[in-house]
């Protein structure tokens, strides 16, 4: 029996009528051999193609560019290209999608390129669908991105709003606090007046604390929170925090049990921030524990961690709120009665601060009505050095001074002047920079307390002008609502000796006045 191979057509015929279009070109693309299949598909006769047209001449303009930028260089460098899909323009102008493979070979020392073309009309339709689907997906992605950008912008505006709000509230708080100090120095005897003064003081302190927390949260959101780490003894910080929170705890007649380690427990932390963490946890415990409850503060070491635990017998936390308790505004949605709810700023601040110190904070509660326990863990610093926590303030010296206060908030100026007068100082005031300069020139004070945000001539400019003529021993104290590091740096470079943030902590001011005496001496 004959082999089926014997009845095959000649190779030349097989080439001519292959199931794909076949071309051979020189390296510039000139067609030097073409099969009948390609001629049939393209509508050109072999005579019209051979030596007269280049392969790129059969492409659309887009295809020509693709040939020049992709196909030709690929052939030159790699000597082969696979699965390029381009439209071939027929003699009658119609476009036919084709898939192209090509390879370069040497014959008698000359480079030639072999091309194989396959018509891919169906694949083209399919690809077209795919491209459309991708365009839709891209459009959807763009829309999503735009929506996310809008959300981020809204979120940033919210942060900016909160920061501005906090600053705006802070300003009127300054004279309120000073007025309360004035009341303290007056010998009231009427118990109702005394009670009213105490209420005023507690509530103003509470607002001030909320505003400070809000500012801190804004700083964190804006990535501006600064941590000034030092090696500190945790027990010392805990004691300071307890002192600050004591009035709130006592106000609700809670019993506070404190357990601190005997050995120094040194952590690398910003003493002010760490104290803030403990205060917030204590205040939180006091707030959410019914009057007469118990609060425990326990500081100890567990292997390489310093552990701070604050436990209370308070209202507790429902299990489904445990996971969101550290998120800002979480307590609004937690369904707590209004009187007990808050903005959730304190705990979100605790979490952010602890994390900035490389630590963790966790909460445990057996459920509503069963109290809560917050646990902060910080890495222990294994150093032998002693704590260099903030040194205690030197005993306050007191001597009457001549003081000029310049601030555009009349209440701030008047109340501060009143307070300083009560302490025996002699004061002059001004509500703008130019008047202030005149007063300083005429009164020649020992100390000038100067607001930065003055209308017209700002505080920095006023400070510079004062420094130009005033005796060098004159003390300049900057007073601002903005308390970023760069604000303080600008103040120092403008010639200020000290920088105070509104609302003025009167004790700090007194300490500065005492220190400025040393400067004179």
């Amino acid at each position: 029996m004959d082999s089926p191979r014997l009845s095959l057509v000649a190779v030349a015929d097989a080439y001519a009528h292959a199931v794909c279009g076949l071309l051979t070109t020189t390296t510039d693309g000139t067609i030097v051999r073409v099969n009948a299949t390609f001629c049939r598909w393209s509508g050109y006769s072999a005579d019209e193609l051979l030596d007269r047209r280049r392969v790129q001449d059969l492409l659309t303009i887009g295809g020509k560019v693709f040939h020049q930028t992709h196909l030709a260089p690929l052939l030159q460098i790699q000597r082969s290209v696979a699965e390029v899909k381009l439209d071939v323009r027929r003699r009658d102008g119609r476009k036919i999608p084709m898939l192209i493979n090509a390879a370069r070979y040497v014959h008698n020392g000359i480079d030639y390129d072999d091309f194989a073309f396959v018509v891919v009309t169906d694949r083209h339709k399919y690809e077209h669908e795919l491209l459309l689907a991708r365009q839709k997906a891209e459009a959807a992605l763009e829309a999503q991105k735009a929506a996310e950008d809008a959300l981020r912008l809204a979120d940033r505006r919210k942060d900016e709003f909160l920061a501005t709000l906090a600053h705006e509230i802070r300003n009127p708080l300054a004279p309120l606090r000073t007025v309360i100090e004035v009341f303290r120095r007056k010998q009231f005897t009427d118990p109702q007046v005394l009670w009213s003064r105490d209420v005023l003081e507690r509530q103003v302190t509470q607002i001030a604390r909320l505003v400070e927390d809000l500012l801190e949260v804004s700083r964190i959101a804006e990535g501006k929170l600064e941590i000034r780490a030092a090696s500190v003894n945790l027990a010392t910080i805990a004691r300071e925090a307890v002192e600050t929170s004591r009035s709130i705890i006592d106000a609700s007649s809670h019993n506070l049990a404190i357990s601190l380690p005997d050995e120094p427990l040194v952590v690398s932390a910003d003493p002010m921030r760490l104290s803030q963490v403990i205060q917030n946890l204590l205040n939180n415990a006091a707030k959410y524990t019914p009057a007469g409850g118990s609060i425990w503060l326990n500081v100890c070491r567990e292997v390489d961690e310093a552990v701070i635990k604050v436990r209370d017998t308070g209202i507790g936390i429902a299990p489904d709120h445990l996971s969101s308790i550290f998120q800002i505004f979480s307590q609004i949605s937690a369904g707590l009665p209004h009187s007990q709810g808050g903005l959730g700023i304190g705990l979100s601040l605790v979490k952010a601060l602890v994390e900035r110190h490389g630590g963790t904070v966790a909460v445990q509660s057996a459920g509503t009505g069963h109290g809560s326990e917050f646990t902060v863990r910080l890495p222990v610093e294994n150093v032998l050095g002693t704590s260099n926590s903030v040194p205690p303030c030197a005993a306050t010296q007191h001597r009457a001074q001549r003081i000029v206060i310049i601030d555009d908030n009349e209440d701030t100026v008047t109340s501060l002047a009143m307070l300083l007068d009560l302490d025996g100082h002699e004061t002059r005031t001004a509500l703008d920079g130019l008047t202030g300069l005149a007063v300083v020139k005429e009164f020649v004070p020992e100390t000038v307390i100067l607001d930065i945000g003055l209308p017209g001539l700002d505080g920095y400019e006023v400070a510079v002008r004062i420094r130009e003529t005033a005796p060098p021993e004159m003390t300049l104290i900057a007073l601002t609502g903005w308390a970023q590091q760069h604000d303080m740096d600008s103040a120092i470079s403008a010639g200020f000796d000290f920088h105070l943030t509104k609302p003025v902590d009167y004790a700090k001011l007194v300490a500065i006045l005492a220190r400025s005496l040393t400067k004179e001496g």
Partner: protein
Amino acid sequence: MSIQSRNNVQILGEGSVTMLFAHGFGCDLSMWRNFAPSFASRYRTVVFDLVGGGQSDLSAYNRTKYGSLSGYADDVIEIIEECAKGPTIYVGHSVSTMIGMLAAIQRPDLFLANVMIGPSPSFIDDGDYSGGFSREDIDELLGALDSNYLGWSSTMAPAIMGSPEQPELADELTNSFFRTDPEIARHFARVTFLADHRGDLSSVTTPTLIVQSSDDLLAPLSVGEYMHRNIAGSSLSIVANVGHCPHLSAPGPSKEAAEAFLGTLGY
């Protein structure tokens, strides 16, 4: 991410003047292999990949930054500040000629000269301006690219089928040619082919050489002449070459044109 690894910067030669080579669309630094080495004995020759191409750090690709050529121009300035010694002669191909031009307009102090190989300020015809293509042509091209980048993995990064005559081509450089992320390539194609920097030509103060191929579909002679007219004091050199890559296919004449131009500047 250092600038050097972001842009796959490679330093080939040393000298008191730097020659920085920037490849064109769809290419990578290997496009300079027939061109750059002959300058390495005299200059500190530096080649690099545009972000998105070759061995650049693809994670640095940012659609907003690279949504216009000025994003690439900023990179060129950073590369010069980081990797160049002395003043820089910039040699750009295709789209990188515009990138270098924008960089030099922004920081003329960094550039001694600008050698533009196959430049085009705008591919699309507009009134009296003949860029070589209608908007439909460019859309068709972008469609062809879309279509081929769709099947990218098999199309543009085929296994090297061996080239015994030129074994040196079978090295990593060859393999990296066109090995671009298809999404990036599609985006870059749009940025490249829809860019219009005709308005910037009059701001050029750096001495400029335009190397124009005698037969280049992407940058026809009329475009080279337009550039020459609109860049004050520029030189135009037409090299006999078919195609858009004279530095690859006609490196000799292209090099001679560059040498002659640098000679007139005294380098």
